[in-house]
């Protein structure tokens, strides 16, 4: 059994080291190029250590919760069918007299993107009052959500600080650019707990080929220089890049799916298994091209 306290300490010390490297750069007077490169390397190393610790904490946290929640997890997956093809707000709610009280908002979920905050109370959805006669507010909300198709918008009326406000929440298309579509093998849920949580997130384990890339989501103004109004700009590729990308490429779609952010791109890319091939549409020097990309085998990625 590992201690998460230690992990939290490691996270904090990593963050401190990261700050240290950052301050070392901004605080110093002009120095030789070698000094700047050394600081940059330290900064990069600190970031990698922090990310490694964060991933480890996530894995161990799932492992620690597993014995208590394994049965619930399996029941959730079996009865709920996961998130695939369903619309989700990305909220944890509980019943109160005033409506469905929000106790947690999923980061980067549809509700968070629309502006729903923890401590809000949802009093109506699409004009349906959640208060009053049974069933409960949370049950009424769930009943309504079952009828909402991906890609549609739901309108919430929330009570915040004594005032009512209306919030339109757009459901991700096709089950989600958010979460669900990243589970191509949902029939055998990878979250099912069998005492080994090492595979709880393929986005960690399959991201190796893309780790040293640097991305930025294209803005319309920036896009004018690249001949496209949207896409994901590849700012930097690693020196040993063998997948066919170059600095300045703009990724338009990956296997038919348009990446909205670097995180989204990694979700899509990580949904392809080692050895699989995919087509990536890019803009290179303002001309559209298609790259045939083969995901490296795990052995090759490890040795890289």
């Amino acid at each position, binding site marked *: 059994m590992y201690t998460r306290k230690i992990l939290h300490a490691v996270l904090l*010390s990593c963050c401190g080291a990261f700050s240290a490297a950052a301050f070392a750069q901004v605080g110093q007077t002009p120095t030789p190029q070698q000094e700047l490169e050394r600081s940059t390397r330290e900064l990069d190393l600190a970031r990698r250590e922090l990310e490694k610790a964060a*991933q480890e904490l996530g894995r161990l946290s799932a492992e620690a919760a597993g014995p208590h929640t394994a049965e619930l997890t399996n029941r959730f997956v079996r009865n709920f069918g996961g998130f695939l093809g369903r619309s989700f707000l990305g909220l944890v709610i509980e019943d109160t007299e005033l409506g469905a009280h929000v106790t947690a908002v999923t980061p980067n979920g549809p509700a968070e993107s629309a502006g729903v905050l923890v401590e809000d109370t949802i009093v109506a959805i699409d004009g349906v009052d959640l208060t009053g006669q049974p069933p409960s507010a949370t049950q009424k909300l769930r009943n309504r959500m079952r009828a909402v198709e991906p890609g549609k918008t739901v309108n919430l009326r929330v009570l915040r600080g004594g005032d009512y406000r209306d919030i339109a929440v757009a459901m991700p298309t096709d089950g989600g650019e958010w979460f669900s579509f990243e589970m191509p093998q949902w029939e055998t849920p990878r979250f099912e707990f069998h005492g080994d949580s090492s595979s709880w997130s393929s*986005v960690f384990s399959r991201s190796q080929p893309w780790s040293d890339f640097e991305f930025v989501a294209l803005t319309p103004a920036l896009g004018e220089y690249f001949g496209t109004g949207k896409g994901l700009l590849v700012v930097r590729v690693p020196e040993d890049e063998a997948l066919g990308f170059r600095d300045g490429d703009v990724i338009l779609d990956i296997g038919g799916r348009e990446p909205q952010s670097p995180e989204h791109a990694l979700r899509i890319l990580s949904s392809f298994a080692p050895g699989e091939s995919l087509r990536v549409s890019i803009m290179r020097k303002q001309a559209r091209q298609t790259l045939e990309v083969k995901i490296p085998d795990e052995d090759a990625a490890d040795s890289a």
Partner: protein
Amino acid sequence: MRRGLQALPELDPPPGVWERSLAAADAPRPGPRRVWAAIGAAAAVTSVAIGYLATQPEHPVMPSSTVIVAEAANRPRVPFVALLEESAALEQLLAGMPRRPVMAGSTAATIAGLEDRIAFVDGQLAYAASFDVPQRQREALWTERVDLMNALVHVRYASAQQFVVER
């Protein structure tokens, strides 16, 4: 140390942060425990950074990844209400953090993986709320959520720091 702090570049607010701040100002005031949790987390990170400035020019000590798997102990059981408050405080910290437009693939993967797992835990919590699930199971899920949110806040914080340096 003063010179180091003065040398920090100005940081423009990220898009939408003022709207979120106004919304937060309209929201019910959090309880004192939540405020202290948020202040504590921010102070802890800040104190580490300032502590480093005070010890310049020594190089930062990199924690060994082996430390991660070297200790054995149990986390003490945290009261249920405290878990909810800590989770909410971390959400508020995360909402106020600047976002860096340029991102390394490894950072993007870490954030995506943590967000996916939080989404899955939230799905279970929503499911648990609608069925009669034992309190111990819910506590375990909330504990996991707090751990994951904490990790996400740290990674976002580091990413924002890099943003400051580059500007």
